[in-house]
Structure formats: C-alpha cells, structure tokens
C-alpha cells in the first residue's frame, strides 16, 4: 500500500464516519458536525493528491484547501445560526421534526 493510498483510506474512513453521523443522529448540531467531518475528509484528499500528485510545485491542492476552509467557516457560521433559529421555532434541535416546509 503506497502512502497515497493510506491517506485516501484515512479520508474515506473519516468521510464515512461523517456520513453515518449525518444519517443516524437526530440532533441538528451533530448532523452539521458530521457534514464538517465529510468536508474535512475532502480536504484531506486534496492535500494527499497534492503531496503525491504529478505537479506539487503548482500547489493547486493547497490553494483549493485554503478556499475550502474559508467556505467551511462560512458554512459552519450559517449552519449553526440555522440551528439556533430552529431552536427558537420549535424549542428543540431535532432535525426530524423540522419539516414544516414539507410540500
């Protein structure tokens, strides 16, 4: 197993952990954190491919991760604000109950 494969397996495991959290947990905050983990896993892949990829000097992976981190910060802020708004509306943060917009 090459180092690149090891990195990718690591990120796959992290991604699956995040996915399981999103699927199983009902607390909206934990679901958001699961999404964060999945995003982190994607970033891991970028760094891994940059490190072992064909043109590391170009630094595409690093640049991409820097942008992804900025977007992740925005996402976390908005997501958690949504959680707080949700809590204000229904006095709890259970995601399954937030279906008022259902068609």
């Amino acid at each position, binding site marked *: 197993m090459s180092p690149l494969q090891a*990195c990718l397996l*690591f990120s796959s495991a992290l991604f699956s952990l995040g996915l399981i959290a999103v699927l199983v947990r009902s*607390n909206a905050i*934990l679901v958001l954190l699961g999404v964060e983990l999945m995003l982190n896993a994607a970033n891991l892949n970028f760094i891994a491919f940059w490190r072992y990829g064909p043109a*590391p000097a170009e630094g595409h992976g690093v640049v991409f991760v*820097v942008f992804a981190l900025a977007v992740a910060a925005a996402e976390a802020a908005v997501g958690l604000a949504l959680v707080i708004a949700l809590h*204000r*509306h229904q006095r709890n943060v259970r995601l399954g109950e937030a279906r008022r917009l259902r068609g």
Partner: protein
Amino acid sequence: MTALAAIALLTLAAAAIALALRDLIHSALLLIASWVGIAAFYLWAGAEFVAFAQVLIYVGAISMVVLFAVLLTRPPTGPATREPSGRAVPGFLAGGAVLGLLAGAVLSSPLPAGTGAAPAFGVRELGLKLLGPHAGALLATAALLTVALLGAVVLAAARGKEDAS
C-alpha cells in the same frame, strides 16, 4: 507511515467517539481533538500553512461557535433524549457501503506510487498563487464570508415578534 497511522487512528477514534456520545459538550470537545488530528496530518504532509489555518479556523473559531450553539440550544431539563433506533441500522449500512466502495476504489485504482520528498510549496509560493492567479477567487471568498456572517447574524438574532410568540 507510522506517524500517519498514529494520526489517522487518533483522528478517527476521536471522531467516532464524538459522534457516538450523548452529551453534546463532550462531542464538541472530542471533535476539536479530531480537528487537531487533521491539522497534524496537514503538517505531516508538509502543508504547514493549511495546518495552521485548520487550527485557527476549526480548533479556534468553529469549535467556539459549536460550543455556543450547544449551550444556547440545550434542553432545560436533563440530558438529550435517546436516539430513535429505527434509523441506526440503515444508517450504518449506508455508511459501511460507502466506506467499502471508497476503499475498493482506492485500492483498485492505479494511483501514482508517490515520491519520498515533500514538495517545496511554502507560504511564499502560496501567497503568490493566492494573490496572483487566484486573486479574483480570493475576493469572491471574502465577499462570501462577509455575506455568510451577516446572514448568520440575521438568522440567529431573535426578532421581537417571534420572541413573543
């Protein structure tokens, strides 16, 4: 490789325990540990700037926001209720399937074997890239961040009318 294995093990263990715990405060704290692990991975891979950014953004900022959200949305009495168990089995099945597929794809693909030396891509090169070819994207990200933060404030701010209801 040993270092990578240790980092991966710590990160995954912290994340797994964090997502299984019922006390959200503990979850948040363990997730911080997991994010530190990811930062350690970046350091291991030679992307120092990304590692420091990870520490600043996740360990420093997002963790605080998460903790605040947890504290603000705590139910007034007792710990969180039990998870409804109906979703657990299909959830784990789906997660496991995804993991299996990803692992299969990774192991079966002809990936480059990797070089020993870390690429020389320091802060200086990153800065030149960011302010050179990617300057437009940088500006767009800045605008996005501003708008997102304003939006977050608007969403989280309690409006008088709803507060009364």
